[in-house]
């Protein structure tokens, strides 16, 4: 690029503010030269380099990738998954009253442990009824399938002799109650 700097009056000439005749005589040659150079400028349409268009196209595509309508299905799916993992409140099962009985004349205490009380051997004590050694407890349980055992004197796990029983996986038997 040329480092030539035109005189301010010549620049006014190029801008069309003044005519060549308005220039002082010592600047007219410079003015003519400037006009000649201006006339030589190629005024054909200049195309933007292809690389620019590729960059612009890339930016456009990137803008398209984050269009909100494309996120909608993904957001809907995510919302559905969140609803799925949130514990739905199940319908309350029917309740059934059940009386448990164990004849254990020598026992000092008898309790009931099972799936309905998280196998807590202290949660459901039986009551001794009379001198016969019959222990009883009456519970209201949700309909479904329950497994249980009596706990005699806090240490001995005894299946209910009046109910079917299954292997408990620990070498003992659990009584089964289906309501």
């Amino acid at each position, binding site marked *: 690029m040329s480092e030539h700097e035109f005189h301010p009056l010549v620049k006014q000439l190029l801008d069309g503010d003044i005519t060549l005749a308005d220039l002082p005589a010592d600047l007219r040659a410079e003015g003519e030269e400037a006009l000649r150079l201006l006339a030589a400028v190629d005024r054909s349409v200049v195309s933007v380099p292809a690389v620019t268009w590729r960059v612009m196209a890339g930016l456009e595509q990137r803008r398209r990738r984050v269009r909100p309508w494309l*996120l909608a299905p*993904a*957001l809907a*799916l*995510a919302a559905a*998954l*969140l609803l*799925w*993992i949130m514990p739905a409140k199940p319908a309350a099962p*029917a309740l*059934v*009253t*059940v*009386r*448990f*009985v164990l004849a254990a004349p020598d026992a000092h205490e008898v309790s009931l*442990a099972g*799936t309905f009380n*998280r*196998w*807590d*051997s202290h949660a459901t004590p039986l009551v001794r009824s009379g001198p016969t050694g019959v222990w009883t407890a009456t519970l209201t349980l949700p*309909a*479904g*399938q329950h*497994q249980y055992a009596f706990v005699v004197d806090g240490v001995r*796990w005894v299946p*209910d002799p*009046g*109910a*079917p*029983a*299954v*292997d*408990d*996986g*620990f070498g*003992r038997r*659990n*009584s*089964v*109650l*289906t*309501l």
Partner: protein
Amino acid sequence: MIATLLVIPLTLLGMQQQDSIAARLEGRVSPGIATLVQQLGVAASARGLPVDPLIQKAIEGSAKGVPAERVATAVRWVAMQLDTAAAALREGGVTTDTLVIAAGEFAISAGLSNHDITALARTGASVSSLTVGLRVAGTLAAMGVPSAENIGLISAKLRSGQPTGDLLLVPARVQAEIARGVTPAQAAAGLERAAAAQARHGPPPGRGTPPPHPPSPPHP
């Protein structure tokens, strides 16, 4: 981005499951058993299996004073049975439902096979009826009713479309027949014939409606 949106809820699901299991086991089992049940529970839940039987078995073992390694073995065994039950139900055309899978697991633990579970699933009964049917079949197996008579009876009951309350009375009826001196197999076969006849001719007078009272407790 879509993958991220999918991963976040699944991660939350795993964390939520772990917290829930840990809360239910807190103070009831050793830390080692708690960790094992959390791992098995999250994996089971991801496969659509119920978690409650795993938690119950761990708590039961600890409450009974069983050594930790034996509790771990029992919990793993329950997880395997849940998988077996779920596969048997799918084989029978029943889609996953945690209650029916748990009922199938109980039936297997009581002595029924995966083929028995599939046979009951193929009766076309609703999932809720099938759940009750599996529980009752497991109970009959625990009473000593052989598989053939057991599945024959429960299949006939399920196909008859009778209310589930009637199905729940089956163990008491089998027990009553046994008390009269027949074998468990004979008792179940007799009830199956009666159910088949009822299906052909319709319910006897006064039957065919849900029982007005809940099923009898084991010690009426």
